[in-house]
């Protein structure tokens, strides 16, 4: 597959949905990609099923505050510097680029780096969604070292991190990010083809394009785009359980900013099929746990998405407000994200929730 002008909008729409309420607005990412595509960039996407073990890929991403992103736009050239620094430290060249995050603005950056370096981009990531911190990645769960991690600012100044854990790298890089002007361009988690096959969530880039496409086609053909999205997951290449958990309107949003995270709850009253019921979804940048009439119906890392009930456009935790008519949908996370080791890193308890993870399909 290739990313082109024709499927760019589908990809962005899909990446916003996989953002599960967070991940940042991919609008700026779309503009960056558009600029590269207009210059004639040819971005090759590699299927992880078909790569050889000696592929050597580097994960790239932006760190920082979405409010800064919209003003001081992420710089693809700075990311390339980070990639080259990691190569210097390791004394080995990369032959592929990879996203760490499939949802939100970070889904777009690796493609821009692919365009700038001419390297192919692996169709896989370490979350299959969006998460707020660098250690919340399948690679980390299964023993891939985040280091050497390099972050670079717009001037080309970079910092290399050699740390004992991914958490520590996250902690240090986050602090440096503030000094770098609230945004930095990072490269980390160098991986071999073998490690990608063993630890990554596969085909998430194609997934974004295809769910974006499913939603667009449903709108064009006047079918229900949310239903079409659910159908898509059930019949996809890697079928996953997916269901509409609630159909309702937002009656209250409690939101505060704690230690740099948007933390809160959204309350919904049911309409149509959910009439008479109530739903509450807890979030910390992304949606974490959905409850209907007090009963848990979905838990992180399964994907909980809040979509406009007419258009299936993704609604972020920052923009939710009273009166939004939404459908809350649940999508089973990939099996690689539901193991005990994975749940220890990004299950409900990793977010200080009092519930344990229960698979979506068992809660139905």
């Amino acid at each position, binding site marked *: 597959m290739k990313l082109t002008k024709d499927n760019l909008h589908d990809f962005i729409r899909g990446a916003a949905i996989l953002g599960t309420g967070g991940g940042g607005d991919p*609008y*700026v990412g779309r*503009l*960056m990609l*558009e*600029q590269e595509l207009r210059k004639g960039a040819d971005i090759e996407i590699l299927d992880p099923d078909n790569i050889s073990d000696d592929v050597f890929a580097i994960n790239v991403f932006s*760190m*920082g*505050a*979405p*409010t*800064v992103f*919209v*003003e*001081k*736009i*992420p*710089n*693809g*050239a700075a990311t390339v510097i980070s990639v080259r620094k990691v190569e210097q430290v390791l004394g080995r060249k990369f032959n592929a680029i990879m996203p760490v995050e499939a949802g939100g603005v970070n889904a777009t950056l690796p493609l*821009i780096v692919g365009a700038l370096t001419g390297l192919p981009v692996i169709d896989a990531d370490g979350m299959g969604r969006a998460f*707020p911190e660098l250690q919340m990645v399948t690679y980390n769960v299964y023993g891939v070292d985040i280091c050497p991690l390099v972050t670079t600012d*717009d*001037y*080309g100044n970079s910092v290399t991190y050699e740390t004992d854990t991914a958490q520590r790298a996250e902690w240090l890089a*986050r602090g440096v*990010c*503030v000094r770098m*002007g*609230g945004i930095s361009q990072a490269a980390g988690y160098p991986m071999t083809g073998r490690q990608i096959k063993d630890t990554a969530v596969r085909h998430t880039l194609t997934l974004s394009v295809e769910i974006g496409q499913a939603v667009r086609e449903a709108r064009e053909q006047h079918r229900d785009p949310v239903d079409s999205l659910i159908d898509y997951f059930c019949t996809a290449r890697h079928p996953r359980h997916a269901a509409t958990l609630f159909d309702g*309107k937002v*009656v209250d949003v409690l939101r505060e*900013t704690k*230690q*740099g*995270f*948007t933390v809160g709850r959204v309350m919904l009253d049911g309409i149509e099929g959910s009439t008479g019921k109530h739903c509450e979804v807890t979030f910390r*940048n992304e949606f974490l746990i959905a409850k209907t009439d007090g009963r848990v119906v979905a838990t992180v890392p399964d994907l909980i998405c809040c979509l406009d009930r007419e258009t299936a456009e993704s609604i972020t935790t*920052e*923009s939710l*407000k*009273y*009166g*939004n*008519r939404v459908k809350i949908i649940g999508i089973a996370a990939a099996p690689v994200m539901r193991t005990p080791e994975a749940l220890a890193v990004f299950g409900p308890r990793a977010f200080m929730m009092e519930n344990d993870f229960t698979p979506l399909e068992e809660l139905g």
Partner: protein
Amino acid sequence: MRVGVDVGGTNTDAVLMEGDAVLASFKAPTTADVESGIVGAIRAVMADADVVAESIESVMIGTTQFTNAFVEGRRLVEVAVIRAALPATASVQPLLDFPERLANAVGNHPYLVPGGYEFDGREISPLGEKEVLAAARDIKRKGLNSVAISCVFSPINDAMEKRIAEILRNEINDVELTLSTDIGRVGLIERENATIMNASLVELSKMVVGSFRTALKNLNITAPFFVSQNDGTLMSADYVERYPVLTFASGPTNSMRGAARLSGQDNAVVVDIGGTTTDVGVLVHGFPRESAVSVDIGGVRTNFRMPDILSIGLGGGSYVRDGERLTVGPDSVGFELTEKALVFGGDILTTTDIAVAAGAVDIGDKSRVKNINAALVKNSLAEIHRLIENAIDRVKTSVEDSPVVLVGGGSVLVTQKLRGASEVNIPDKSAVANAIGAGMAQVGGEIDRIFSYETEGRDAAMAWAKEEAIQRAVAAGAVADSVQILEVEELPLTYMPAGAVRLRVKAVGDLAMRKGGDG
């Protein structure tokens, strides 16, 4: 006494007001030259109330001309864009997301130069004065006369944008300059887009403001005149000449504010039912609640102060279909209502026919709807009310019932109590609500910046922001004593250390009235 004028695509309306009282109103078709339509409408209200030109203290004009010109890509000038930002932001060039037609209309003349600020006010780079000078010479060589200037985080510090303006003025005679700090909020691309839009309208704005001046001169009115902005406040004639883009969407804002004033409500949901759509918005302290999301104008993304208006496909001309499931709208016979509706001899069942059959209104030939069965009438009315009630509920900010102000020709469709409404007001004269809204005579000032509460302290930052907003309102022409803080919005930044907060404060006051002068 004041005159409020609304220049719409179809009609030019005028009202003569004293305080809250409407002394006279007049509706006339908009003329091709605009000027004679305004003269005719103002002359009519002055004659009606028997008022001489000398007693007019001010004139307020609302106009959709600039919005229409931009959306249609007509009468725009080519624009040079200078962005102070390097080494940052090179990954998204100016004008990237303009639809091709508009991109061609404004040309492709971007210049990126070193400069810009960090979120905390540090410089990204010192301003590249040499590069600005080189750009200025190139712009001069190309014969471009209008320049849009943007800079990363200029809402925090406008010094670089001002310095660029200075260099350009020294280099090019009579150059028109638009600074992004004067136009928009945090969000570089959206703010820059709006700045480019403004720069593309400068020639048209000179012409339009000139025609307003001539119109008033022909009427012997020497009072200053003002033009409505998109948030409902006014700007002076000189200001609109430089910032025509700030008039975008002032039409719906004026309509809502005018309707609310007519009904004596400052906090209400306004439901405007037209022929094809129903527009629903919320007034808070007399001003429309602003949209939180980005607004596209002619396909270009901006972050204007736009009223948050929900449009649904329900109007006086909406189709009523009695199929397996009864549906109302979203399609409409629109302006062909008087040919296609049953009561007008047509063969399409519309909401107007239902209202006539229900006895809510007597228009057309009601004998043509007497055979519609009672259940269909009842169910259609139920569906119409459900659609309106849903829309009201969507725009409300809390579960409590709210007063509702109902305007527009389609308001005859409302025959029953509306769920969610504590009361329903249907004001008289709502046909000229836009002109009344324009005539409401308030001016505002706004600040939108990122503060560090850690270093500045919350109280000090808040006090400074409020004072700055008040000063801006006074500078825009408000009576100092009347200025009040209308809105305070605090948004802590995510993924940042505690204490970095985006603070937006808006102040509004009454326009200082004076006789004479030329604005």
